């Protein structure tokens, strides 16, 4: 059963932004996409997803609009903004740097 591994909170932002880089999605789709892309390893709870999305909205990294989905349902779709793209790059670099540091520590210590 896929469990929710405790993610460091900063990485949630990173993951959401990365997922949205491919294209705009609504909330449920983001959660499903994350689960799918991580091969069911990561399952984002709604309790973490929506607050994170709101925080991204405050920071201006994403924009949200109401549209009608293919099934005819009214959904709110989130899309990445220009500053969001910049933020993504920054966070990606940060993440890679810190993982590389931790890995080399584990290897050599």
């Amino acid at each position, binding site marked *: 059963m896929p469990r929710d591994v405790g993610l460091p909170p900063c990485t949630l932002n990173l993951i959401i932004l990365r997922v949205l880089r491919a294209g705009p999605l609504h909330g449920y789709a983001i959660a499903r996409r994350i689960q799918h892309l991580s091969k069911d390893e990561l399952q984002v709870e*709604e309790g973490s997803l929506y*607050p994170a999305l709101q925080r991204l909205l405050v920071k201006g990294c994403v924009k949200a609009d109401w549209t009608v989905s293919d099934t005819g349902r*009214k959904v709110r779709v989130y899309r990445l903004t220009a500053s969001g793209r910049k933020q993504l790059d920054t966070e990606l670099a940060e993440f890679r740097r810190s993982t590389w540091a931790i890995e080399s520590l584990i290897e050599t210590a």
Partner: protein
Amino acid sequence: MILGEWARRVWYLMHRRRFERELAEEMAAHREMMGERQQFGNALRLREESRDAWISRWLDEAFQDLRHGARTLWRTPTFTLAAVLILSFGIGLNLAFFQLLNVRVLRPPRVRNPETLVSFDRHSKTFRSNGIPYPATQFIRHHNSVLSAVLTSGGGGVVWGDDASDRLGALYVSANWFTELGYGAALGRVFVEGTDERPDAPSAVVVSHELWRTRLQGESDVVGRSVRINDRPATIIGVAAKGFPDLEQHDPQLWLLLHQIDRFNPGTDFKEAWGAHNTQLYARLRPGITPAAAKDALRATVGELARLRPAEFRPDETLEPYSGHDGFRGPRDHKELLTVALLIGSLTLVVLMVVCANLSNLILSHAIARLREFGVRAALGASRRRIVRQQLVENLLLASLGALGGLLLGYWCVRILAAQTSTPRYLDFAPDWRMATAACAIALFSTLLFGLIPAWMVSRRDLVAVVKEGGHQTSRGLARARFRLMLIASEVAGCCVLLIVAGLMVRGLQRLLMSDLGFEFEQVAVMDASPRQYGIRGEAARAYWDEVKRSIGVRPDVERLALASQAPLGESVSESMYNDASRLRVTNMHVEPSFFQLMRIPLLTGRTFQPSDDHRAVIISRRLAIEMYGTLDVLGKGFPKSKPDRTIIGMSADAPLIEVGATTVAEQYSPIDRDGYADVLLLARARGNPEALLTPMRAAARAADSRILARAGLMKTDFDERLRTRRLASLVAGVIGLLALSLACFGIFGVVAYGVAMRTKEIGIRRALGADAASVVRLLLGQLAFPIGIGMLFGTVAGVAAGWMLARAPFYLPSTDVATPAVALVFFALTAIIAALVPASRALGTEPLQALRHE
């Protein structure tokens, strides 16, 4: 970017409802898509967490508290109104006082660079004078190294137009007066150094803005107009700027050139007289020169003056500078003012504390009534801190309303006071940033004072238990709260102080008005003809006065006439100080023999002057005799004691002519010497109404010499002026005292009544157990005696101390007053008894079973 982020937050706040609704819809859609079976989690908590992303929680809660507080206050209008009113009173009083202090004491006069402007007084070991002879000022102007500009002013009223009784206040000034003080003209131009000082320059006058607006109807073509001043032609060269300050608070309507004073007073020797004290000297210090340095540097100049004119200047004289920054007040005056200010300030603060104690009680009672509400909130999950915070916000709201009301009240009070005490018009009382800051500070301070403690007290209770009990509980915990009793005690103490001081002030004034002043002035008229200004001196002046006295003296309604060098209670005084009586300021008067009988000043021993007496004869007052010689037997002794150059021929009763009610002044009288007749005033005692004498006196002055335009008035007017401020202060004190008394009674009533109501259950129990009504009442009252007694004790001690301080200058109040504290005690005791009896009777009337219901 940060700016964008804040913009987004504000946008969210504005459309909050819509966004929350959309979030709810979004989550509902999510739930649908997940399929009903799956858990979604606590939707409410999710929404709250999402909301937290947009606005910080405490801000959100603060807004909630504010809205809730406002609603609560709105729902209990009587409480809110009462609280806001008494808070406005306390805050307004403090603000009014602060503003008066600000304008009169703290704010330097609004001139250019007041720190580099100084005024100079002549100081020597034996006398002080703020008047310097005009030729000396010009000498100083041209013989110094430390002053970059010298300003002079002098002179008095002039006659405007063709009507002889139309007198206006005027000031003769140096040509650089306006420019040095940093003001230009509203219309036309002001005096210009150089051009206007030429001997062939036309007679110029600058009119005040006020005069231009009223007498000249604000017409724009006044510049260049020719007018008659002292029946001499002059040209209006300009209108002064609005709000141009006067350094001596005389509020002149016209400014003329000192240089041209002889044009308006032909024959005057103003500009040549070395022995006069007719000019005020101001100067601007060179950059880098301090007032002390200027004083030192000018010693050389004064030394030269002493060599030039040894009769008028002594080598040990100095020119004492007073900085413009302190309003040209000397350190002694400054200290005195500050003492007065401190005293009044403490009084107003005490009022504020009493107000806050009252408010505290009110709020505590209010809060206790709402205990059930708090209990419910606590049960629903509100933290203790949140409840306390909500209380605080509510109190802050009250305090803000009170501060606003206080600001309005304070401003209004100050305007009234200013009008009553004839404060010069240019003093600006508009609230400035300092006053606004003071208002905020006082509001905050009072909130903490009255709000924090009840809030804390409420929070300590077990609120859930309160809900269970339905809000009626026994008297343990809160009623026994020493705090409430302390509040009673502090209220009583504060009110005691206020009452005592107010009582002293009122009694002091009574004493002033009804006591024996030492002289009688109600029927006396004073005329100032200034013959010297018209060049009439010496024997000619004496002859002039003889003529005037003759023509007035024949009137049947004139009882007596006398000439005197100064007007009692008048403005200009000449004081001497003697080493042998260093504590006293001695008024130095030159009078005719009939003076004493005219003023009804009894001669205790000796005789009045005779025509054969010359300047060696002197009459001194009783206080001076005791202070200098230690005995009343001073006839024939040499005066002054250590260097006698005169002989005492008589001793008069004390008659403090320069300052009403003062105890450190004495009088000394000499005959008018030959040259003195040019400077004396005429005093006339009327048999009937002194007002009827004024016009004939003026006419007689004119008849004896057609050039002379004299001024005449009643001595009573001067006295009223002198006393007006003190009378007002006493009135204000009386009002404050009464208000404090009612506040205290109100507060005591509230606390006591509530405390007794709280103990309904306990009373019920006692009655059920067999106690009779009388013993219950005795118990209740007995417990009140302690705090009231303590409060009275502290209050009386503090009040007596305050009274002792007020017995000194400049109030001179009687220092002991037993009646007022006694009255206060009776009042407080009565109030407490009534306050206890009313609810007690109601409690005693309740069925014991009902009181025991929740046991």
